């Protein structure tokens, strides 16, 4: 698997990371090296093997549907780049 410059830029877009042409070229070299490493996975047959996401055989824990947290908005928003009236400010999205 080897990425074209176009694909590097596409992936950067999916990841919402701005990338210049020069950066994309540098990234392309490194990424293709990493893909060569990853390709080794194809050397083993995994037919019929169940994917493993978690070490222990557990399920998502449930709890009672009651309020357990307290309002800490002021503390959490004190570190935000831009807030007003309890809202996080971002550039306008909808006209």
């Amino acid at each position: 698997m080897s990425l074209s410059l176009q694909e590097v830029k596409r992936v950067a877009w999916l990841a919402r990371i701005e990338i210049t042409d020069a950066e994309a070229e540098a990234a392309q070299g490194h990424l293709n090296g990493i893909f060569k490493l990853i390709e080794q996975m194809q050397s083993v047959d995994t037919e019929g093997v169940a994917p493993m996401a978690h070490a222990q055989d557990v399920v998502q824990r449930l709890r009672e549907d009651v309020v357990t947290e307290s309002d800490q908005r002021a503390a959490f928003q004190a570190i935000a780049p831009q807030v007003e009236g309890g809202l996080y400010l971002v550039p306008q999205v909808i006209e």
Partner: protein
Amino acid sequence: MLNVTLKQLALALAQKRISSVELTQLHLERVARIDPVLNAFITIDRERSLAQAQAADALIAAGKAQPLTGVPVAVKDIFCAQGWLTTCGSKMLANFVSPYDAHVVGRLNAAGAVILGKTNMDEFAMGSSSETSFRGPVKNPWDPARVPGGSSGGSAAAVAARMAPAAIGTDTGGSIRQPAALCGICGIKPTYGVVSRYGMIAFASSLDQGGPIAKCAEDLALLLNAMAGFDARDSTSLDRPGEDYTRALEQPLAGLRIGVPKEYFGAGLGADVAAAIETALAQYEKLGAKRIAISLPNSGLSVPAYYVIAPAEASSNLSRYDGVRYGYRAPQYTDLVDLYCKSRAQGFGAEVKRRILIGTYVLSHGYYDAYYLKAQKIRRLIAQDFVKAYEQCDLIMGPTAPSVAFAVGEKAFDPVQMYLNDIYTVAANLAGLPAMSIPCGFGEGGMPVGLHVIGNYFSEAKMLNAAHQYQRATDWHTRAPREFA
């Protein structure tokens, strides 16, 4: 006071031979003097630490001391600590003062420990050398021209240089064990689910585990006692009965079966490291252990599988950094999407971006099956290899890293060369098994070598027992770099 165990420190504090305030001041002075060379700390807050020390002294005077009360502990900057700058080694969080405590930080505080400072690390825990931090590289106390390992390099360097009696770190692919090995000290990554990840900035959620870094196995056990345990706020935290990890330390090792995988002694392993490991294994046999040759056939696939799974999970976890609610926001942008793209481009370093790109690609439409799912299947095969192995042995041993610490800058330009440092450690993260590194000798250039011990699920007490008995019979763990002894 600098080369004693935590138990000896607790006794000194109880007997009033030293106060926590004096002990904390002693270590803060060492940091001020030594850290300009090593760069192990990102944040020191003298007032905060001394205030905690005073509170600890009050507890000690009132007869309410616990084993860690009054002990200064260095905390990897990946753990949120309320009121402390928590940067995760990244420009993205360079201004993030955490409004809450990680579960583990809360537990240390409740135990009366003193937070000595926040330690330097590879950015977002992605690295094996502690060179990618936005605050510059950490240096190895044994040779400041070399790396301390990563990503918990700051924590490891702090302990090795006696700037802190103990530290905590995190391990996703070896980030506690490999720095411990390269710095000549001890570190353990517990079974997945034993230490809560709440407040531990997420890298790869199915692999991350927090754990202690210290000078000896007994210290690791005391720290693990404080850190481990169920936390409802971490949905992957395991609800199990409490354990005392010191309970088996003194058990004799007669009959202990040590599995030695043939795959760990192939090409790529330095002869100096192999020799030190061989000597350690012979020592274990002298202590009554039996050495058994085993095979972990899918070992060679650990690194490829890890470098699919970890970046994939990282790409998801790091999508929260968008310049909106906290962290770095680009100063100029045209619209919302541009805000995201520029904040992330400017806030993240090169290695972090590389891993996000890999992760995004392997999870994207058309590639998910071939890469992510395939890697998860290989993960199952790797875990099954261990299950089979533990039918024949109690512990698995080998080298922690393929070489001793390398030079700063040596591997920084070839990601794959850097990734190969993890060759022995990642399998334990993939399988969720507990794994530990303890010092077992020296190699090229007089640099430390670490012995890697992988245990079966929940066998930390037995692993610490094996390490403690080894440390009773040897003195590698008492060695300190000459300048900092």
